[in-house]
């Protein structure tokens, strides 16, 4: 698992205006942020908002209380941004049905349909499953990003995948 021992230094130098350091934070944490957004929004919107979330975080980095909590902090920003985005646009259910119409030809309609199935699951399971199945995070990484306990992540993965498996029609 990746070590985040250098987080305090990366955050301090980012506050001081070092773009390389903030770029490293982006490389490390853009997937969790994107996952949090995509659990709630259409993929196109999630990609755009990922950038916005990091720019917002950069402005407010100075207010972060605990450097080690950066992952949870920026994911909380992402959740708020997703909620704001929802208020201004259509609900997820409608977006999910339009996923096939994408401007990214490399992203298959099948992937969009699978994501729509995740977005129909109870809220407790969506984020955990997207972070695991889409973004490829491990259980401990999901726990760090979401602020959930490792046990809760295990339960959400287990129950969520049991529901999803039936909806996707995947076979053991």
């Amino acid at each position, binding site marked *: 698992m990746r070590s985040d021992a250098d987080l305090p230094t990366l*955050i301090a130098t980012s506050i001081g*205006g070092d773009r390389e350091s903030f770029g490293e934070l982006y490389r490390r944490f*853009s997937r969790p942020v994107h996952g949090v957004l995509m659990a709630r929004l259409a993929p196109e919107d999630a990609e755009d908002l*990922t*950038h916005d979330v990091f720019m917002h975080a950069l402005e407010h980095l100075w207010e972060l209380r605990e*450097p080690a909590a950066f992952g949870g902090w920026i994911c909380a920003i992402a959740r708020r941004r997703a909620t704001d985005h929802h208020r201004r646009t259509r609900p997820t259910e409608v977006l999910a049905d339009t996923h096939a119409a994408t401007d990214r030809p490399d992203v*298959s309609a099948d992937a969009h349909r699978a994501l729509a199935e995740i977005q129909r699951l109870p809220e407790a399971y969506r984020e955990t499953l997207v972070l695991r199945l889409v*973004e490829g995070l491990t*259980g401990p990484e999901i726990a760090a990003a979401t602020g959930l306990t490792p046990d809760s992540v295990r339960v959400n993965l287990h129950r969520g995948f049991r529901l*999803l498996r039936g909806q996707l029609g995947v076979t053991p």
Partner: protein
Amino acid sequence: MTIPSEDDRIDAYLWDAAAPPDDAVRQAEQRLGALRFDPVRTPLLWPAPAPAVVGHRRRWLYGLAAAVVIIAAGWSLAEWRLSWPAGRAWTMAATPASLPERLAVGSTLTLPASESARVNIARIGTMQVQGDARMTLEFTQQGRHRLALERGTVRVRVWAPPGSVVVRTPAGDVIDLGCAFDLTADADRSIVRVRSGWVQLDNPIGESLVPAGAVSEMLTDRAPGVAVFEDASPDFQAAVRALEASANPDVAALVRVILAQARPRDVLTLLLLIDRGAPGRDQFAARAAGLFPPPAGVTANGVLRGDRDGLWRWRDSLPLPPAKSWIRNWRDGLPAWLSGRN
């Protein structure tokens, strides 16, 4: 040998992709993997710098001439703004009818609780005086203006070199360093909230520099308090003040609160507490280093052993407004309606 159940296999692989794969999870991963975010393919886009304007040589010369004219005019205006004949009375910008139109040296402005007045600080700024206030203009000339605020609240905006305006209060002096600030004073306490630039608090026991966004208070019987940012948690602010007051017997609990609640932005407060020799300074130094590492050549241990130069270098590495760049706070020199500041 126990054969893991299907659920166990799924759970293990869901928890860590390095575990033996499960076919059902792999199928879901393969279908969804196309949506995975790639920070290399989608790099962070920094705001682009303003494009350079390439123009005709003559246009360049016109621009240079215009710049010279603007700089000369600006210089003259600044000279005029900063100039002030010794002893000339200040004008009152907006006052109740019961008050005079000018504030002469030696005269006292007394306002009842229900009223407020705006006073022009020579030509370098304004001061909103709020209810139940008593204030005397003691001295005024170019570069040096001094008032005594016995009680009440003033909202000051000054755009001038540091030290141009001094407000004396019963608890000590409040010195502008090119700034905007709110000051509330009574017989034994002064509270300063800085809105832009820096302010210095000074009394016979010590001094304190307070940057924009921070608050400090000064009492007659102790050194001015260290700067604490107003957006710090209420518990953090209360613990710092209680630690300074030395009135709380449970110092260890206060130190714990400060350590737990400090953010990188609060490293300034931690460094100032270290400098003051506050209880818990060893822990504050370690915490400060964790939140905002000191610059090269400065160490937390060195600071604890008395490296004051290092401590100030550490403080200066924090992203705070430059202490002596009053000129950058040019908005404080504009009228309130234009600057968007009161």
